[in-house]
């Protein structure tokens, strides 16, 4: 008997008892569906993080305000803007590993272009910001020195903002837009960097302070909300970091033993750590889902054992008519395999549907890769072989004489 005939016989037998067959494979269906879904959500989360890491740029340090004491009261991080433009200048001049640096302040505002308007982040910064983040222009130019120095009325748009304010085919360069009633000229549109990054409009730091954000937050002439700095090479990250720390402590006159009023972070490293955590959680969830697969396998073994007992006479007849022991074993193994493969296929379909539903309802990014599907199917075939073997072996060992005597 060939494998093909084995599958034919198996399909015939399983069709006779569709409800039982379906219930038997339910454990596999649930197990495989969970594995596929967990994989899809896990790798979606990783993709999102990778995109964020990429958007920050390589070898970037971020300096944000830390906790400050004001008259003995400890205020939370960021409640006072402790960094200044001269800090940026000092970092650039005194630390040789730093290639580029820029200070920023940010807020949200409505941008209006003709009849269209859009609410987005307004980031006041210098051209150095784009150098740090390796952010290229799709069209136009960066800010000029004059514009940066004299609060020029110019703006560079992220690709999402450009898409929302301008009709396809319209050239935004040279167009007038308005932010908080201030007319600005669009001088550049940035390349795409990722959906979370592209929804932004950049103006020169001086423009932001003078015209929009100065009064809104307690920003004085010199302060910036955060600084980003690009380190020349990967191996210099730790050194550059400690140099920035000692420089800023010195400049901010932080006494020895007192907490810094700033924080230097490596966002990419933090996100990589987060990515590791996501991977661990995903693996844990896959392990839990595998338990369901195990239970499914046991249920298949159980039903197969019952089926062998019920069909003892059939086995006897088949043996008498020339079925070899291995033919009987193949027949029952094929039944277990068909159950698992069918269950696996339904599970894959269910998992894809489920993760697409999750993606739509929770707004998560999910990514279904062939590897996860392949793995799930390999698991279900292995389950079929492992849990189908014992009943099949048992069937093949039945004495044909005894089997023919059973009713």
């Amino acid at each position, binding site marked *: *008997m*060939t494998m093909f*005939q084995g599958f034919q*016989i198996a399909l*015939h*037998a399983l069709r*006779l008892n569709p409800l039982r067959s379906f219930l038997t494979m339910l454990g596999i269906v649930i197990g495989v569906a969970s594995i596929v879904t967990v994989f899809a959500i896990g790798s979606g989360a990783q993709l999102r993080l990778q995109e964020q890491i990429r958007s920050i740029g390589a070898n970037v340090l971020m300096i944000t305000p830390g906790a400050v004491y004001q008259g003995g009261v400890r205020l939370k991080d960021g409640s006072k803007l402790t960094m200044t433009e001269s800090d940026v200048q000092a970092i650039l001049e005194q630390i040789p590993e730093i290639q580029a640096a820029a200070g920023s302040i940010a807020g949200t505002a409505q941008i209006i272009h003709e009849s269209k308007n859009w609410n987005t982040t307004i980031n006041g910064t210098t051209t150095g910001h784009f150098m740090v983040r390796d952010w290229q222009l799709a069209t136009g130019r960066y800010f000029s020195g004059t514009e940066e120095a004299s609060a020029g009325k110019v703006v560079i748009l992220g690709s999402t903002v450009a898409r929302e304010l301008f009709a396809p085919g319209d050239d935004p360069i040279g167009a007038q837009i308005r932010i908080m009633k201030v007319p600005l000229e669009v001088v550049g549109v940035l390349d795409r960097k990722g959906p979370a990054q592209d929804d932004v409009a950049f103006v020169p730091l001086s423009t932001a302070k003078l015209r929009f954000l100065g009064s809104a937050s307690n920003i004085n002439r010199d302060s910036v909300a955060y600084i980003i700095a690009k380190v020349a090479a990967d191996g210099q990250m730790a050194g550059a970091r400690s140099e920035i720390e000692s420089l800023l402590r010195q400049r901010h006159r932080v006494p020895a033993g007192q907490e810094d009023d700033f924080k230097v972070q490596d966002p990419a490293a933090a996100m990589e750590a987060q990515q590791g955590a996501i991977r661990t959680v995903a693996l844990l969830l896959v392990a839990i889902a595998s338990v369901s697969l195990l239970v499914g396998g046991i249920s298949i073994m159980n039903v197969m054992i019952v089926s062998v007992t019920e069909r003892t*006479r*059939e086995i*006897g*007849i*088949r*043996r*008498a*008519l*020339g*079925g*070899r*022991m*291995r*033919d009987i074993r193949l027949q029952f193994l094929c039944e277990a395999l068909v159950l698992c493969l069918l269950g696996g296929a339904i599970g894959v379909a269910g998992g894809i549907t489920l993760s697409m539903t999750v993606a739509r309802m929770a707004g998560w990014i999910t990514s279904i890769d062939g590897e996860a599907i392949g793995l799930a199917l390999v698991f279900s075939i292995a389950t079929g072989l492992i849990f189908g073997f014992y009943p099949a072996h048992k069937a093949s060992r039945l004495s*044909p*004489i005894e089997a*023919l005597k059973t009713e």
Partner: protein
Amino acid sequence: MSAPLPLISLRSVSRTYRTDGVAVTAVRNVSFDIAQGEIVAVMGPSGSGKSTLMNMIGLLDLPSEGAVHLEGANVAELSEDRRSSLRARSIGFVFQSYNLLARHNAIENVALPLVYCGVGRKARLARAEASLEAVGMLHRAHHFPRQLSGGEQQRVAIARALIASPLIVLADEPTGALDSRTGAEILALFAALNRTGQTIVMITHDPGIATQCRRTIRLHDGELVSDETTAGLLPKRSAVS
């Protein structure tokens, strides 16, 4: 008529079962030959060892002592797989309770032994049709066993036994579950098959059936008590009703 070559030969065959530590001898020191083209009745009351003997001739069981030869080969020396293959090709079983697979229709049941001979589906079904036609059951090819009468089921079972052109058809009480008229028809079918040269061994406890076979082997308590060839011939009426 010169003596044909023995198809099956049993030499001092005994079969002892051991159950719960007690040895029970079902067949004791039995020897006989069956030649090509014979029709033989094996008779005896229940418990006389008929079924054990049939299991050994049918390669389902091996003797504890002595030897069973099929076409000169000692079956005990063959592997389990080889014996299974020989069952598919050389032995056709007919059982008292028909033993058709309830979930397969007549033609699939008839074709079943060919699955184990490695015959493809198309060829299997074509040969099953021919076999069903030979027993007059082609019109019922797509009926399931539960839709057939006992006599019809037994005809289907005979078609199945014949499909691989076996050396020997082994029938265990083939009319035991049938009324006398249907039983007579089945016997007539066997007689017709025998006239085409088919070797048949029929196990029965019914003396009426035995008298219709040329040769009768009688068993009692596992021992061979007589082996007679009578002048009585099976009635020569048409097998196909």
